[in-house]
């Protein structure tokens, strides 16, 4: 039987294998080793949740701790990418993008275009997102829609260990800046992951489940909730097709459109706040390009338009869940 490892281990393995293969791959971030200058262990942490653990000693000189200066070191990753490196910089929580977004969206993303093609910026920014950790409003956001909006950025949202490894290797090899979004709740998810090196291409959605009644497009952690809902709906005779875009930019429009051409019904599931979200993006796409096939309103299942609350009593209500998906699918299925 194939080997099973966690999402977190898959990410670690991808980094390890690419660092071994290519000496220009470097890793940097706050406590990515963990212990710089400290009297004890020099790789005490391996990232705040241990994702980069062990790389420091395996790849001497290429795993760098940084001061808490996100503009400084994310920008440095961009600059190093312009000078022959393939840096993988960690923005610990995506919520911190507000202190360093300029280096990402005005610098890395725009160089190639502004410079008339004269620059490549093969930088990867790994970052943790999502609710569910009782981490409150400043440590639980999704925000991938913001990066998706920006021309020049590619945005990756793996929903399982297999994709996490293959998409991260692809990200490192890609010549454009890539935002690699890791859902913190998924770190412990186990799945079959080949030991060998492989890539998952960008812009190719996965059809996670086939079905003829309703198309569900779900992102990141929401894929597993969609699967839960679909399994339940199956028992009621409703057959869902589930699509996991895997990358929001580029977006595999064809797979989504073809599915809706067949089912005529669409539910989009996005953990983020609703306005100008991926949910609305995909809904808008289908309302323009597959309108003729649509038999029902397009439902968006998202978090409400409020910050992420701390207490479990509210956070659990905040996060879209399988029941909400099931209800939305039922509504669009029953729509006449």
């Amino acid at each position: 039987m194939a080997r099973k490892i966690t999402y977190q281990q898959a990410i670690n393995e991808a980094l390890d294998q690419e660092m071994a293969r290519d000496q220009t791959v470097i890793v940097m971030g706050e406590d990515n080793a963990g212990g710089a200058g400290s009297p004890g262990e020099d790789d005490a942490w391996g990232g705040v949740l241990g994702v980069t653990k062990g790389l420091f000693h395996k790849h001497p000189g290429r795993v760098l701790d940084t001061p808490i200066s996100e503009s400084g070191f994310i920008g440095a990753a961009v600059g190093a990418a312009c000078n022959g490196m393939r840096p993988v910089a960690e923005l610990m929580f995506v919520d911190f993008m507000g202190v360093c977004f300029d280096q990402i969206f005005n610098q890395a993303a725009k160089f190639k275009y502004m410079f008339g093609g004269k620059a490549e910026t093969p930088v990867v920014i790994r970052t943790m997102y999502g609710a569910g950790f009782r981490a409150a409003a400043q440590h639980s956001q999704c925000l991938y829609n913001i990066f998706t909006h920006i021309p020049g950025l590619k945005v990756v949202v793996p929903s399982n260990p297999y994709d996490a490894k293959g998409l991260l290797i692809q990200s490192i090899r890609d010549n454009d800046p890539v935002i690699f979004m890791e859902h913190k709740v998924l770190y412990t998810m186990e799945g079959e992951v080949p030991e060998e090196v492989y890539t998952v291409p960008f812009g190719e959605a996965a059809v996670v489940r086939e079905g003829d009644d309703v198309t569900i497009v779900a992102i990141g952690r929401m894929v597993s909730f969609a699967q839960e809902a679909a399994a339940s709906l199956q028992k009621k005779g409703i057959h869902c097709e589930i699509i996991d875009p895997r990358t929001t930019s580029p977006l595999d429009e064809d797979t989504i459109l073809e599915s809706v051409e067949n089912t005529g019904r669409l539910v989009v599931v996005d953990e983020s706040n609703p306005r100008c979200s991926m949910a609305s993006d995909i809904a808008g796409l289908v309302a323009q390009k597959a309108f003729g096939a649509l038999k029902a309103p397009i439902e968006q299942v998202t978090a409400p338009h409020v910050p992420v609350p701390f207490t479990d009593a509210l956070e659990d209500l905040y996060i879209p869940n399988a029941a909400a998906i099931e209800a939305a699918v039922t509504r669009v299925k029953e729509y006449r």
Partner: protein
Amino acid sequence: MSETLNRESLLEAYRTMRTIREFEERVHNDFATGEIPGFVHLYAGEEASATGVCMHLTGDDYIASTHRGHGHCIAKGVDPVGMMAEIWGKATGTCKGKGGSMHIADLEVGMLGANGIVGGGGPLICGTALASKIRGDRTVGVCFFGDGASNQGTIFEAMNLATVWNLPAIFVAENNGYAEATSSTFSVACDNIADRASAFGMPGVIVDGFDFFAVHEAAGEAIRRARDGGGPTLIEMKLSRYYGHFEGDQQTYRAPGEVQKLRETKDCLLQFRKRVTANGEITGEQLDAIDAEVKAMIDGSVVKAKADPKPAAADLMTDVYVSY
């Protein structure tokens, strides 16, 4: 000993420090049982800093705090009972359970919030201080931040802005030697954080942050100058945290025995007790009595927090402008 520190003030200072310590030790223990959700960063060991600074402040002065905010909250007058309920995620919490440990705030007592964003408080405190200055009401703003935060652009910008606008703002760098697992000897490119003051045209002071009296004196001078229109000051407190970066941290980056030694030789409560009881001004029994009162109060806060209700579902959608 400064003239403002009469017997009553000393007892108050001790009570504040003890309350912080007891609060944190209790959260530490309860976190270990798995009942407390989320990320919790404890202030134990650093009590003299928050206490010595905030004793000079009134409810009209503002402070901005950090992820390690419990001590600043208590010292600034936030009710520990509400705080405990907040940390337990209850509707009776200071922020109705919506904020949690990293976002406790109470503007009514001038506490502008713990902050989940390292360095976030620097600009904010320039703002409260700007309002103070425009109104001319002699109030001040104090920004607490860590050694790690001292490398964040927001803190640098705030210090520059405070001098440029001549604001009644005080920057208190709590240098506990680590930002998560990273040493300040690595992350801070100069010897002392206080050495950066001259780059921003303000006085810089280094203070033993275990010594309540040293903190109190340095803060008093800086706050007085700020109230008098003399502009900002940077104070670096050299101190240590007794627990991990957050609860759960194994701290393998620290030297063996590092904390134990500090607890035994430098602890702010021990030092304080020794000093104030030395001349008989205050007796050990008086302090013991405070210890007991504080313990009872904190015990009670936990009992209450556990029993209190969680927010109702409808609270998800309140306290924010909602439209969609």
